[in-house]
């Protein structure tokens, strides 16, 4: 037997020791972003949701509901109403994919490898989020392209358009932590998708994304008023069409901050403990 003495070990890791430096952390996240991007290259079908969904939704809503909501022949006006709304929705739908992705990853041995390597465990999750933000930007670009084809007009400036896009991305990224948490908690990717849909549908349709809430019953209006997706849709809409933006922008940022502050630490803790 050897002479290595084993002192009574406290259950906690010693703080600071062997910590990953910021530069190394960025490098690790970069390597993992590259991994996720290569996965997309290998499996281009995984981009279908980002590319096709904006096209299908724009056509459907503008031509099926546009006339009814804004009056026959008045679809043009609806384009400027619904496209900013769809920007808000896109973020949420893309964010959902991160949950199923994380869940899938855990089924494979590769997660064990990452977790037994000298990298910050959060870097795996952050890399996922970075790639999903990239996908969101692709989806937004397709959506705006469709919008311009159908006559979308920017009544403000490119700067405000960029602000609208940025706001959707920030909010979408905060939602990703919820879906990561779901992905780490639920047993299968299908279950993650099921629960996500259940949450998404009422949030999306019970909002100002597709139609002004003024015709909705009072109880639903109070729901849509507090629905963060309404805030985001209103903010994006007013940034593009002009109008008061301060309230809805701050509300959206506030929601994003609260959601991230609550769910990100939970998700990282869950990720650390998951076996």
């Amino acid at each position, binding site marked *: 037997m050897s002479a290595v003495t084993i002192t009574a070990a406290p259950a906690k890791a010693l703080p600071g020791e062997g910590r990953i430096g910021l530069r190394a952390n960025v490098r690790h996240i970069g390597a993992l972003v590259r991994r996720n991007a290569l996965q997309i290259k290998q499996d281009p079908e995984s981009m279908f949701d980002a590319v096709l969904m904006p096209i299908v939704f724009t056509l459907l809503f503008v031509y099926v509901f546009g006339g009814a909501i804004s009056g026959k022949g008045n679809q043009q006006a609806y384009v400027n109403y619904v496209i900013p709304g769809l920007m808000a929705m896109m973020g949420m739908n893309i964010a959902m994919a991160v949950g199923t992705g994380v869940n899938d990853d855990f089924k494979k041995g590769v997660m064990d490898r990452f977790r*037994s390597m*000298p990298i910050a465990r959060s870097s795996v999750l952050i890399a996922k989020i970075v790639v999903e933000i990239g996908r969101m930007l692709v989806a937004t670009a397709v959506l705006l392209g469709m919008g311009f084809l159908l006559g979308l007009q920017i009544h403000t400036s490119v700067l405000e358009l960029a602000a609208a896009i940025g706001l959707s991305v920030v909010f979408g990224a905060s939602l990703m932590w919820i879906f990561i948490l779901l992905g780490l908690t639920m047993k299968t990717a299908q279950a993650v998708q099921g629960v996500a849909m259940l949450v998404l549908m009422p949030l999306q349709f019970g909002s100002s994304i597709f139609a002004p809430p003024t015709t909705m019953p009072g109880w639903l209006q109070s729901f849509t008023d507090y629905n963060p997706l309404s805030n985001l849709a209103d903010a994006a809409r007013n940034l593009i069409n002009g109008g008061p933006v301060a309230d809805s922008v701050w509300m959206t940022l506030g929601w994003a901050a609260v959601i991230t502050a609550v769910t990100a630490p939970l998700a990282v803790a869950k990720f650390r403990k998951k076996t």
Partner: protein
Amino acid sequence: MTRIDKNAVEVRGLVKHYGETKALDGVDLDVREGTVLGVLGPNGAGKTTLVRCLSTLVSPDAGHAVVAGYDVLRQPRQLRRVIGLTGQYASVDEKLSGWENLYMIGRLLDLSRKDARLRADEMLERFSLTEAAKRPAMQYSGGMRRRLDLAASMIGSPAVLFLDEPTTGLDPRTRNEVWDEVRRMVADGATVLLTTQYMEEAEQLASELTVIDRGRVIANGRVDELKAKVGGRTLQIRPSDPAQLPAMAAAVADAGLDGLAGAQAVLDEGLLYVPILSDEQLTAVVGLLGVRGFGIAHIGTHLPSLDEVFLAITGEKTLSSEISDTIAEEVAA
């Protein structure tokens, strides 16, 4: 030599419970630096939990473990720098090519872009995967995937390598390839802790063995010591002239050598079997036959198989022998 006495892995009283299941129930073991320890046990014995504790994937409930000088609970970050892990399931990204996988691991281990590239090329070459370098790993055969997995574990030249059932599900040829790789890693100075259900694998690779069952160590020691503990060797002698077999058997049996159980001539095989308990007996038997003028063409000794060892220690059959028994019965029926 001092390094022989140094332990690369020390485990004391390691406990991990999952609800009612005691996956590890107070495990002690040591792996000397530069050697291979085989952790042998049937399915559900706690082998995988042990490896997961030692590679910081799960925290033990009690006990201590030190790997390459780092405590698994107190210094997990440093520990992760010096270990490599190959699990039962391929721990590579199947959508990435072999090269991309290795390059990614290199970058995660803080190699520069250039070094990571060179290292990926080097490892692919070494594990005979150069031709498949650009193909996604999902298109690899089981053996190729396992080799890629080992290559990924070796990128950082870890001091301690954990291999959790590295050849489960591989065909014999591929299994031999993996064994060769493990031998090379050890030759390069790595310390290996290898779990296996296969007696043959432990015999082929490990210098020492720890047998675990239901989360407890039930035996440990050098492979040959363990076998000797369970039963002696059998001396096999092939005479130059097979016709002399009965006379040889009689000569050994009549000689009345101390403690010798007797000798058995198996004419079909042209072999004389003599169970022996010591080197002295071996020398005495061979010497006796020489003095009597019998010609000997070949001599060998046979140790009991590790299946027999396990049966002798636990009084239970291992899963693999149970399965082969079942198959034998089914074939018989």
